[in-house]
């Protein structure tokens, strides 16, 4: 029953993507650990971490596409869920430092000692256990999304209004986490991690392990999203996207459907953030900035929203471009990114995959259908 549920969403595109992920899961460990450092096939830990980072972003893009591409909710605050998941993982990693910090306090992270705090705040308790942190990684973003969505969808905040208040949400969180009193390290965030599950976080093998975990998380996220989208629930979601009030008159509580997709998406974003933090080695409040949320939106748009493989492709491509530009031509990166936003919205409304599909079947009848973008229903 469950297997059938998970398998029913898989199509040809999914096959290609999952194969690529499987190859990565095997090739990267071999190339990073099994080759000599001077071999042309060798991957440095830096490269492994970079690839891992791209895949975390891909998972974030996937989660964003689930709500934007399939329910029509343009979230400008998905980085909030990503970052909260990251902080939950960061808190675990901070507790793992133990007495190896600068002040050598076994219980309190350095920044708390610095602020003259004498005991751990209540919300830091439990984070010394990995299982607890792992639950919080999904629970905290999930609960926030649930509460936010419950109010927003019930009172029928839609379209740009919803986008603007999601932006306000992540902005408020950013301001809050910048405060030292919040107990999350203020400006500097959480960093200087030592080990995860007892493994040295800098070691090549740990990095490879984290990479493989990210590949697995992305694959599971993808299969889950495909299954959801292919189910009748997924059809209701698409119907909500295209004509929400009609769905209500069919007797569906559309608020609950949106809430389901929204919360699921937030949990996925949280997992992406949790995997991101140990690989980049830091989490700070600037991740909450509205700009990073909007950047995630462009990954989805570039790849093609409403297709699950698109956002994965878009996230990897755009971030590869970002790594290249910021190193080679830093002045030009913002021009390139800005131009990408304009070009994609003007000329590629369905992204790379949508363009490919359009080129493939240029049947006149199909063309009239696809000429109608999903959110034409307006504000």
């Amino acid at each position, binding site marked *: 029953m469950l297997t059938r549920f998970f398998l029913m969403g898989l199509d040809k595109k999914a096959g290609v993507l999952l194969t690529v992920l499987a190859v990565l899961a095997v090739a990267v460990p071999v190339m990073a650990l099994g080759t000599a450092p001077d071999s042309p096939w060798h991957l440095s830990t830096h490269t492994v971490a970079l690839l891992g980072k791209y895949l975390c972003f891909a998972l974030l893009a996937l989660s964003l596409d689930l709500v934007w591409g399939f329910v029509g909710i343009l979230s400008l605050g998905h980085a909030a869920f990503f970052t909260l998941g990251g902080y939950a993982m960061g808190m675990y990693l901070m507790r793992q430092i133990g007495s190896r910090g600068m002040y050598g306090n076994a219980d309190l992270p350095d920044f708390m000692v610095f602020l003259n705090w004498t005991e751990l705040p209540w919300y830091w308790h439990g984070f010394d256990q990995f299982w607890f942190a792992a639950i919080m990684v999904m629970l905290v973003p999930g609960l926030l999304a649930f509460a936010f969505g419950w109010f927003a969808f019930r009172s029928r905040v839609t379209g740009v209004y919803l986008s603007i208040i999601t932006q306000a949400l992540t902005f408020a969180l950013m301001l809050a986490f910048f405060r030292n009193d919040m107990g999350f390290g203020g400006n500097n965030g959480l960093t200087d991690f030592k080990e995860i599950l007892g493994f040295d976080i800098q070691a090549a093998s740990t990095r490879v392990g984290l990479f493989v975990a990210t590949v697995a998380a992305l694959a599971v996220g993808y299969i889950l999203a495909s299954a959801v989208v292919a189910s*009748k629930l997924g059809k209701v979601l698409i119907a909500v996207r295209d004509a929400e*009030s009609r769905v*209500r008159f069919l*007797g569906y*509580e559309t608020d609950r459907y949106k809430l389901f997709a929204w919360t699921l998406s937030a949990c996925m974003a949280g997992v992406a953030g949790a995997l991101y933090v140990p690989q980049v080695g830091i989490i700070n409040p600037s991740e909450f900035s509205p700009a990073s949320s909007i950047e995630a939106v462009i990954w989805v748009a570039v790849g093609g929203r409403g297709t699950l493989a698109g956002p994965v492709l878009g996230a990897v491509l755009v971030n590869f471009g970002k790594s290249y530009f910021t190193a080679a031509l830093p002045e030009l990166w913002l021009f390139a990114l800005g131009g990408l936003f304009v070009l994609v919205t003007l000329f590629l409304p369905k992204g790379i995959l949508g363009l490919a599909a359009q080129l493939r079947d240029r049947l006149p009848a199909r063309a009239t259908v696809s000429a109608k973008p999903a959110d034409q229903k307006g504000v």
Partner: protein
Amino acid sequence: MSTEDTLLYLDGVSVSFDGFRALNRLSLVIEPGEMRAIIGPNGAGKTTMMDVITGKTRPDTGTILFEGRTDLTSLREPAIANLGIGRKFQRPTVFEMHTVWDNLELSLKAPRRPLKTLTYSATREDRARIEEILDITRLSPRRDRPAGSLSHGEKQWLEIGMLLAQDPKLLLVDEPVAGMTDAETEQTAHLLKDIAGKHSVIVVEHDMVFVRELGVKVTVLHEGSVLAEGSLDTVSANKQVIDVYLGR
């Protein structure tokens, strides 16, 4: 006749938008199995009446009872739909990205909770029912086409098919033949008359030929309240009706 025997009971329903009274102490009774045609000039409150019944708009005052006991004024749209009130919009609204089949499957009477739909798969009876509706609405050849690719008339029929799949006790049908050819209009009239046997139907329509075709009791709305009620011939002879509507 007591309220309990009625299917839909509206009493003294008023709605105003920024000072404009869309409905003015409207009272209307529909009995089980009845088909009723509602006519009236633009702005008479026909669409607002449907909005009020289906929960899209909340009335300022007045009572709306379904099956003589359920107060509709405090319910939201999905709850009202699940009580057994289906609605077809003036402009055909189908899910354009979904296939005709999926449109019907979504409308089909089945559990509406998210977790139920997540694990739903169509049973043999469900499939048979969808096939049946495809036949009735003559959309069988189009079953796998996206609804967005249908012609205007086909969309109207698909929407009626969706209403059938919902299997409501009361159907609210807003201008079902707008933009249809004469032949299509006639077919639609037959279709609605077939449905009327098992369900109650309220049809809002401008097309007098079509209303005559239906041959049912007619209610004339004017400025948000009932101006006249009776057979089409009776209301057509009513001087007030001629003045405000038919005469011009």
